[in-house]
């Protein structure tokens, strides 16, 4: 294969369509198979296919090498193809260019039409008209020629922008209680959570989560803001997103000698108490508790109307007690006293810094603009001679003929 031929293959539409199909097929696998789990899961769940799945990285389709290679080939293909077609398209943008009508195209000329009137209609519709020896040529929407290239460019920008953006993106997740300060030395500011609030509906369900924060800068400069779901906070180039919330409850353990240990537990967390070899597991804090028909505790709302703690106690790893406690209620085990109280809401915040987004937006804009050019501002040419009217367009041959026929009708003088 010569280099020339290789390049032609690499930039061909045939390869593009093959890639479309592979990318789609590979993506489908990613939506059907659970992603990102342990190797063992696949080996156990799909005994005969497990090794194929992990070898071909079907367990992490979208970050797999195969997927990246497909996308890389796609970018090369699309860029190459666009570079190849662009010069021709630019030439067609030129006013002097007028394509040849198809030989077998219909002649739309009507017997009794008035060519002058027809020309007037075309002019009113903003066709550019050029005289020639046999009649005239009308053209409109030359911009449509580059529609596909604008779209292609947009897609290239989206893929490259998101790829490079993801390489450099920084992100993370953290929890905060009111009063906490989280420092971001790398960005030169800190975030203080002043308050975290739930917005309730009439029926007690949560409508919205609000984090009131203050941004602190080293110079003492500060400003406050509130974020909620769908209303992120932007500080310099970092975005903060209200993501989750939960309850943190304080646990006090009193020993026989009056010594005291304190811990802060979220639901599902445990506290190890060395002196008694006790593990205190907070199954959950239920601010408005009810019991299911199976006797499981459940909270009806997040309002603290009927608060209880479900606590499980282990000694040397063996289960010794399961209790439902009121706030402040003492749980005695041997010489030890456990108390849960003062539950507080904490907020969960995601942060992300990603300049790729700007490129994705720019690319999306170009992609959409290009589509509009291609589909609605497609090049329209009409060649008018003494005995014939012929249309030339690639995009919408039937529809354009239909429009021109209507204009021809109007210039027979029968209408209007």
């Amino acid at each position, binding site marked *: 294969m010569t280099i020339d031929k290789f390049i032609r293959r690499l930039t061909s539409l045939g390869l593009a369509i093959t890639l479309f199909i592979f990318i*789609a097929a590979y993506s489908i696998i990613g939506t059907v198979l659970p992603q990102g789990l342990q190797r063992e899961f696949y080996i156990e769940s799909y005994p005969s296919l497990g090794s194929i799945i992990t070898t071909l990285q079907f367990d992490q389709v*979208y970050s797999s090498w195969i997927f990246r290679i497909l996308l890389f080939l796609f970018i090369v293909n699309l860029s190459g193809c666009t570079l190849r077609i662009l010069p021709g398209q630019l030439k067609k943008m030129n006013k002097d260019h007028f394509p040849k009508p198809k030989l077998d195209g219909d002649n739309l000329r009507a017997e009794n039409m008035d060519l002058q009137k027809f020309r007037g209609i075309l002019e009113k519709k903003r066709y550019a008209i050029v005289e020639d020896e046999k009649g005239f040529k009308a053209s409109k929407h030359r911009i449509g020629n580059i529609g596909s290239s604008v779209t292609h460019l947009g897609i290239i920008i989206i893929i490259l922008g998101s790829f490079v953006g993801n390489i450099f993106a920084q992100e993370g997740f953290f929890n905060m209680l009111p009063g906490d300060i989280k420092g971001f030395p790398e960005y030169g500011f800190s975030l203080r959570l002043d308050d975290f609030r739930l917005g309730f509906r009439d029926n007690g369900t949560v409508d919205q989560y609000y984090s009131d924060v203050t941004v602190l800068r080293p110079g003492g400069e500060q400003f406050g803001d509130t974020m909620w779901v769908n209303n992120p906070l932007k500080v310099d180039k970092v*975005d903060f*997103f209200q993501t989750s919330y939960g309850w943190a409850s304080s646990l006090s353990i009193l020993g026989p000698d009056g010594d005291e240990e304190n811990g802060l537990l979220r639901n599902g967390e445990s506290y190890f108490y060395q002196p008694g070899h006790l593990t205190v597991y907070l199954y959950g804090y239920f601010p408005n508790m009810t019991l299911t028909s199976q006797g499981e505790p459940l909270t009806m709302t997040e309002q603290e109307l009927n608060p209880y703690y479900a606590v499980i106690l282990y000694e040397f790893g063996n289960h010794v007690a399961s209790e439902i406690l009121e706030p402040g209620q003492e749980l005695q085990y041997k010489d030890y006293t456990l108390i849960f109280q003062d539950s507080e809401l904490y907020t969960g915040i995601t942060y992300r810094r990603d300049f790729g987004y700007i490129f*994705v937006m720019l690319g999306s804009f170009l992609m*959409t603009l290009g589509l509009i050019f291609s589909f609605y501002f497609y090049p329209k040419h009409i060649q008018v001679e003494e005995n014939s009217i012929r249309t030339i367009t690639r*995009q919408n041959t039937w*529809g354009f003929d239909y429009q021109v026929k209507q204009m021809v009708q109007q210039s027979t003088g029968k209408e209007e």
Partner: protein
Amino acid sequence: MDLVYFEELMFTLAFGGYTLSAVVFFVFVAMKKDKVGKAAIGLTLFGFGIHTVAIILRVIESGRLPFTNQFEFATSFAWGIVLCYLVLHFAYRFTGVGAFVMPIAFLVMGYASMLPKEIKPLMPALQSGWLYLHVGTAVISYGSFAVAAGLAAMYIIGERQKATGDGRTVLPKSEVCDYLSYRVIAFGYLMLTLVIVTGAIWAKYAWSRYWAWDPKETWSLITWLIYSVYIHLRFNRGWKGKPAAWFAVIGFISVIFTFIGVNNILPSIHSYR
């Protein structure tokens, strides 16, 4: 008076209107009588008007556009299909197309009628203006793809009739179905592009990531890729006729799967619960 009661009544009437219109369209195609065609269009218009009232009632009850759960999207989807069909009808007056589009609207309405209709408050992630742009463009896009699939089915059947030599037909010329199907897909494709872009912007605001390969996102991309192949084959390889028509049908199956299949089969943060 209870708005909910009227809404359900209007919905049911609209469903009935669409069902009847689909039947009458079939009769029209079989009997080839202009009057029957007019009646079918009249029934479609009636169904559409009542359906619009049902949707407006729901908007009044809930204080927002009906885009937020499976039922609401299904009813809007059916509405979008009929809207796109009517626009096409009044632009070109090909009455027969209804015989292929209205059954799709009927099926989507039927699906909607089986879903729970209660109005629930919006979960925080859905409380965004992007919701309306995102789902609004989806309604129009999916509606167009449905109409395009109807046109394609009509092309396939028209060709079959030609082959069997049944000359007299009220269906528009096959070539016209073929072209229109392409144009309608081009429009749906532009709208689908906007669905994906607005979805990405919204995801950025709500979840910090503009794209997360969630099954719903991925399937909308797959649908988009299928129609991308269609557009290129058509524009560059001069594909038309039967293969293109089958392709339009496959694209629409992907649309339906993205809408119904992903919600019910695949795990996703997008599936409305």
